């Protein structure tokens, strides 16, 4: 968590306020703001904490704890792992988690290759119609995939890609924002690097791999994140494409526990927590940088 740097910063700025009355007023408004921030944060974290608590609560207790209002809502009678063990070892959820992981990892891998090559071509080479190609590629890939998921799923099924991992991976590889961000970043790399590599006899693929990619770790990470999150949380596409339980991804498996056995809230909550772990880890670590790169580009 990035709580550390904010405290000294607030002290520095409040120390700068001139005069003792200004300082006192600054401290008061700072207190009011802090309380306000805490209240807002509580509104966001309490439902999430409730999910976490319920995932460790005996399943039969969840419904009875809902009403009337009592401490039982947030304090379980005992803590248990049975929701987790039931979900992972009895149902097909661990298989679904593995499927989700495979789909997300390969989408990131292929997606980065496709986006990097396209972004490099659009940033470095000059050819007629370059800007038009750039606009068409980025705009088309920015249209949310969901919009055309229905006709595409029918085509994929016709092509024999229904119920395949490849069918799940393919739609994740084109990402407009990834291409946009990478191109923007590549434009900022001085062309002298490329010229020097060419003098050394490096081919274009080599220049991409050993000059541009090592200089773009932040932009690549950001693009990887966009692709990963898109696939990890994908719901509509696997719903349309996959009918076999063996190939089901985790969000669908989670939704199925809701539909078929609606009494099993315990497993639902445990599944939500399991699915949150990876994005939470990645995003909380990279949080500052995530908002930054996407909107204000590759400049350092």
């Amino acid at each position, binding site marked *: 968590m990035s709580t550390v740097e904010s405290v000294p910063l607030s002290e520095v700025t409040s120390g700068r306020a001139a005069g003792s009355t200004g300082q006192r007023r600054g401290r008061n408004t700072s207190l009011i703001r802090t309380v306000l921030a805490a209240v807002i944060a509580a509104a966001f974290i309490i439902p999430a904490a409730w999910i976490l608590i319920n995932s460790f609560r005996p399943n039969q207790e969840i419904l009875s704890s809902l009403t009337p209002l009592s401490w039982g809502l947030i304090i379980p009678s005992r803590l248990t792992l049975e929701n987790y063990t039931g979900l992972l070892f009895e149902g097909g959820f661990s298989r679904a988690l593995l499927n989700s992981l495979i789909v997300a990892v390969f989408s990131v891998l292929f997606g980065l290759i496709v986006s990097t090559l396209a972004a490099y071509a659009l940033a470095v080479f000059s050819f007629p119609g370059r800007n038009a190609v750039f606009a068409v590629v980025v705009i088309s890939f920015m249209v949310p995939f969901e919009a055309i998921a229905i006709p595409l799923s029918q085509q994929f099924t016709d092509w024999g890609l229904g119920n395949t991992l490849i069918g799940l991976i393919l739609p994740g590889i084109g990402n407009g924002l990834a291409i946009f961000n990478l191109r923007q970043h590549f434009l900022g790399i001085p062309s002298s690097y490329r010229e020097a590599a060419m003098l050394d006899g490096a081919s274009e693929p080599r220049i991409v791999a050993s000059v541009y990619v090592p200089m773009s770790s932040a932009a690549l990470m950001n693009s990887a994140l966009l692709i990963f999150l898109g696939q990890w949380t994908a719901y509509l596409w696997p719903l349309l494409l996959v009918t076999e339980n063996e190939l089901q991804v985790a969000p669908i498996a989670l939704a199925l526990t809701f539909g078929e056995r609606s009494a099993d809230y315990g497993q639902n909550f445990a599944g939500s927590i399991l699915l949150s772990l990876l994005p939470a880890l990645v995003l*909380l670590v990279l949080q500052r940088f995530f908002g930054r790169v996407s909107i204000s580009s590759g400049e350092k």
Partner: protein
Amino acid sequence: MSSMVKTQPGAAPAKVGRRRLDRRRQHFWAVAFLAPALVSLLVLRLLPTLDAVVASTYKAFPGGLVAATFTGLGNYQDLFGSEAFVDTLQRTLWFNLVINPLQIGLALLIAVLLVQRVRLTGLWKTLIFVPVTIPIVGSCIAWSAALQPEGPVNAIIAALGGSPQPFFNSPSQAIWSIILVASWIGIGYWMLFLIAGLQDVPSELYEAARIDRAGPIRTFFLITLPLMKRPILFVLVADTVANFVLFVPVQLITKGGPESSTTLLMFDAYRVTFGYGSRNLGAAEVVILTFIMLFFVFLQFRLLREEKNQA
């Protein structure tokens, strides 16, 4: 290129030939590097869109025994002649007119608060961001439990002396309940982008405002808002794009009801295609949705480019 030319001083014809060769080589690699992206663009975006456009001009009969017949714009006429579809379209537009300014407005207020002198800013930011990391399926299930008639939210309302609310079970409250859930998930996400934008506003301007004794509200309207115009617009459009295809809460919690009060365009296209088996009518809805999307994405792209040019 200039350093390459330097290695061949004086050799004019060779230079021209080399440049032409260089250009041809560049074109070759441009095609090779763009090919994977262009092929996936063709297969994953253009073909399904074309497929939807073509399918939307045919009329099929249930059962598929009789061949589909060409009807031109017949499906669109049917859609716009149907009160239910016009309601769905209006509801989708209304939903977006409400949810997007609401989410971005709240995200902006929180972002402005958190870039001020606040203790433990990082902690509050992290806590507000937590719902973003929960899969939307999980959030929807949890909120449907929390907002059920005998749920904890009603228990809290009752404890405060209010009367229990129907939430997802009421035609007038269901859509607001979806707005609540979607905002709980989304606000932390958009807040991060806005905080990043706010941090780019030069601190000297705030310093100057303070010297001029401008209050927080004047400072917000005179400095923050004008300088944040582009990031705010970008986030607003990106949010709109995301909310036009909002699907999970509708499919999982309300199934479009009660009384169609939460039937949004994306869900309707899905239900018409798979639930009612009207592939062609569904295709027409997909085409309409794609057109709306294209408009907003184009806007988003323009804003992104302007953002860069300014930077």
